[in-house]
């Protein structure tokens, strides 16, 4: 269960949103109603006591949909560290117009940081709350290099055998915005197989996420089969940083490293192919 936020933080963000609504067309956040908590676009005149900051939804996806529908609209977003990182990667890929989005950053609590094993539990544009220390690294990831190949294989076989192919990991992901998904292309994933073919199904997605995954953990949270997907993506993120020095969501000016030349984003490891 998520911790209830400290009242002062929620009050402060409500206050900030109220102020920013003077000049913005709307602020994307979470709203509590009798039905529960869901994403919402707060507009001037809305009851801001309904604004919540848990649970976490991929709010940048809402921004993207609105930016595409309304080419002039200027929005704010109540953003945690992962939301801000998601925004950065989406902006790089033209899914959000950075000139029309204003980050109203909130810091995660220490407990939240620990729960997500989050390396950066606060946004750069922090408005409310104090940055807490990063959560401890995922122990499975830390131990992974010492795990023999056969054991890794057995582990993922067992995990992915549970997959019911709901595509929830993809649907909830703020960085998955393709019109057509490679995981639904019969050339890569033969249709009608349940569980989906291992490891093609999962590795295609992991490879697509290599320069995008911002470690928001939404895929983990939404998986009905409780497959620890972030272990795979954390490993991918680790090797991405080691090979190309790229941390998704870190720098809006850094180009997606796999799409540019070696001059623009050099390879940091010697694979013996540089001659």
């Amino acid at each position: 269960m998520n911790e209830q936020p400290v009242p002062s933080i929620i009050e402060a963000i409500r206050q900030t949103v109220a102020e920013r609504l003077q000049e913005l067309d709307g602020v994307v956040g979470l709203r509590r109603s009798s039905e529960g908590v869901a994403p919402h676009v707060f507009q001037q005149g809305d009851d801001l006591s309904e604004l919540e900051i848990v649970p976490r939804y991929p709010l940048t996806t809402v921004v993207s949909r609105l930016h595409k529908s309304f080419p002039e609209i200027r929005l704010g977003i109540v953003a945690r560290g992962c939301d801000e990182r998601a925004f950065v990667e989406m902006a790089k890929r033209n899914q959000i117009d950075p000139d029309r989005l204003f980050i109203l950053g909130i810091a995660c609590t220490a407990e939240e940081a620990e729960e997500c094993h989050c390396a950066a539990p606060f946004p750069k544009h922090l408005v409310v709350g104090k940055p807490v220390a990063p959560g401890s690294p995922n122990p499975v990831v830390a131990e992974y290099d010492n795990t023999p190949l056969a054991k890794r294989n057995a582990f993922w076989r067992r995990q992915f055998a549970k997959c019911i192919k709901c595509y929830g990991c993809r649907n909830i992901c703020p960085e998955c915005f393709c019109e057509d998904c490679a995981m639904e292309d019969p050339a890569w994933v033969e249709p009608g197989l349940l569980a989906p073919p291992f490891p093609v199904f999962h590795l295609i997605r992991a490879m697509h996420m290599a320069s995008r995954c911002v470690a928001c953990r939404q895929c983990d949270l939404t998986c009905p089969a409780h497959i620890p997907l972030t272990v795979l993506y954390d490993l991918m993120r680790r090797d991405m940083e080691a090979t190309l020095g790229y941390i998704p969501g870190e720098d809006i000016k850094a180009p997606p490293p796999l799409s540019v030349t070696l001059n623009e984003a050099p390879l940091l490891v010697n694979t013996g192919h540089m001659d």
Partner: protein
Amino acid sequence: MDYKNVLTTCVYCGCGCGLYLEVLDGRVIGVWPAKTHEITDGKLCIKGWNIDGFIYHEDRLKTPLIRKDGHLVEASWDEALSLVAEKLGTIKAESGPDSIAFLSSAKGTNEENYLLQKLSRAVIGTNNVDHCARL
């Protein structure tokens, strides 16, 4: 810009997962799993995730169809219901109530399903009633 999320229940099976329909200016544009839903806890299967797929689907029927001279022709609800009542009445009279069966759907609400079994048992007089989620 009128953006809202409307809590509803997945109609595809008897589990009845909670989900939000994402609505922009009166049009459903997507689905969010309901993270604060007691039972479903922000999880959905492939059907729930795609529940918005049929809403505006071009193949969706918007009126009843009646086969006339081998072709399906659009008809009014009054016309269709009268035809069904008439035919059911004839069949019941000719072959008895157990020659008729009722199949209900997860796309109906609890109340609608209750009414259907009531129709089956009390009006027609048969226990031949079942539901797609049991099939």
